[in-house]
């Protein structure tokens, strides 16, 4: 082997990536070439130093990560690409909540009715944007009907009364009033997946008072930690406002999720005021999560404040 090829293979030799024959050639060369042997020593020293450079996982971080992950999954964040999708779930929920119609769904009945070529549109109010032909001839699983009565009429035909629930699709920009209204409504839906998606979309538009209030409501009251985390993110640009800080301080002292408390500490200390010192000192009295304690302690030290109240 030449010096050039030995230098090229040095890391491979060090990491055991050479064949036995290549290793033999390498060792033979290193035995007789002082310069390459010296380079090999440097390679070994690098290995030792790199070992010492290995990062440690801070205490509590792994547990916090696991908590965050499970909260996000239970909150629906993980479902975004599975099943019907959060946006679809949301539309479903909005459609139901706005229609006020029956929640009974009998797609099989609807298909049967449509298959025998009934009328349909003549006895119902058709939702805007849905073509008559589509309604009558191309039934889909997005139409759900419940037949309430069937009566023969004098002309030899039949009159059927039924409730219909129809899924509607709306789309538009975030500054559209209707879209925003629907999202605000969705942020209060029962389905946590819908709330996570809605708050996630709203959080980038926290400048208006209705969205700001929705985010504050979510961070303080939503039972799902995934939703609360999204709301905290959305409040970041507003973290200097006194009433937002007040809510955040309450959340910091009462939320049972350490991931949320961590985020809230970050937000509060970004814009320091006298009140935050007292809040962090109160937190230090009761906080049992090491990572949150560490963060609060660091913030208090940076503000030259004592760690406890006296």
């Amino acid at each position: 082997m030449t010096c050039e090829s030995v230098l090229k293979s040095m890391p491979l030799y060090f990491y055991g990536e050479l064949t036995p024959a290549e290793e033999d050639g390498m060792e033979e060369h290193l035995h007789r070439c002082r310069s390459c042997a010296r380079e090999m020593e440097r390679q070994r020293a690098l290995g030792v130093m790199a070992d010492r450079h290995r990062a440690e996982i801070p205490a509590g971080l792994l547990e916090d990560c696991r908590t965050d992950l499970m909260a996000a999954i239970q909150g629906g964040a993980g479902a975004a690409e599975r099943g019907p999708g959060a946006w679809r779930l949301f539309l479903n929920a909005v459609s139901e909540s706005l229609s006020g119609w029956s929640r009974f769904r009998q797609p099989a009945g609807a298909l049967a009715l449509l298959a025998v070529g009934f009328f349909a549109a003549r006895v119902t109010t058709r939702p805007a944007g849905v073509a008559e032909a589509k309604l009558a001839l191309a039934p889909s699983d997005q139409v759900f009907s419940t037949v309430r009565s069937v009566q023969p009429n004098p002309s030899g035909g039949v009159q059927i009364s039924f409730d219909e629930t129809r899924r509607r699709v709306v789309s538009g920009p975030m500054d559209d009033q209707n879209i925003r209204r629907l999202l605000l409504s969705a942020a209060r839906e029962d389905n946590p997946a819908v709330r996570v998606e809605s708050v996630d979309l709203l959080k980038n538009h926290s400048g208006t008072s209705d969205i700001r209030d929705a985010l504050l409501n979510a961070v303080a009251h939503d039972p799902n930690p995934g939703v609360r985390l999204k709301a905290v993110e959305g409040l970041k640009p507003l973290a200097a406002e006194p009433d937002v800080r007040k809510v955040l301080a309450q959340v910091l002292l009462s939320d049972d999720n350490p991931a949320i408390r961590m985020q809230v500490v970050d937000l509060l200390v970004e814009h320091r005021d006298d009140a935050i010192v007292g809040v962090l000192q109160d937190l230090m009295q009761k906080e049992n999560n090491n990572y949150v304690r560490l963060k609060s302690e660091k913030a208090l030290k940076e503000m030259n404040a004592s760690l406890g109240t006296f």
Partner: protein
Amino acid sequence: MVQDVAEAAGARLTTQADSLIRAAQRGDQDAFEQLVRAYDQSVLRHAMNLLRSPEEARDVYQEVFLKVFRNLHTFRFDCSFHTWLYRIVTNVCLDHLRKRGVRKEEPAVVETGEGPLDRLENVEETSAHADPERNMWNRQLHERIEEGMRDLTPRERMVFELRHYEGLRLRNIGEILGTTEDAAKNCLFRATQKMRSALGDLV
């Protein structure tokens, strides 16, 4: 004999992991959680090594395992789960490294359970505490390593981390990064070359 035992143990672990994956693919959340716990420590350590920031490592963790959760149904057992997982891990980490810029300074101080920790202090050997000269030499050496690391491209850094810290074979690294074994070898060569020259005359 020893090899047989090791192979049998490896096969048993693979079978266990496979049944967890299949159960998680069927929507069993407990199985998914067990699967996460089997791999998440090494993923988090890898992210910490690469990014040197608990906050970013935490983001990487979340991003990686949400992707796993969402895409586990697409895993077809045509490679090992570890390789499939590390494809996701390396993509997410490379994104983070690229976003922050290859040459951005990394914080010398990291947070730990016992308070902020200066990583330069951390490398000092116990015996070196009573020896200020050795202490300073260690510091200099460590600073040079830091410099060398900062000089690596995200891809070189990734190959170095996977080989040195994770102990993966270069063939496997190539598979994870969607490249050839030779390309991974070249990356490792460039990475060690840069770092050896950063050490200068200190060793």
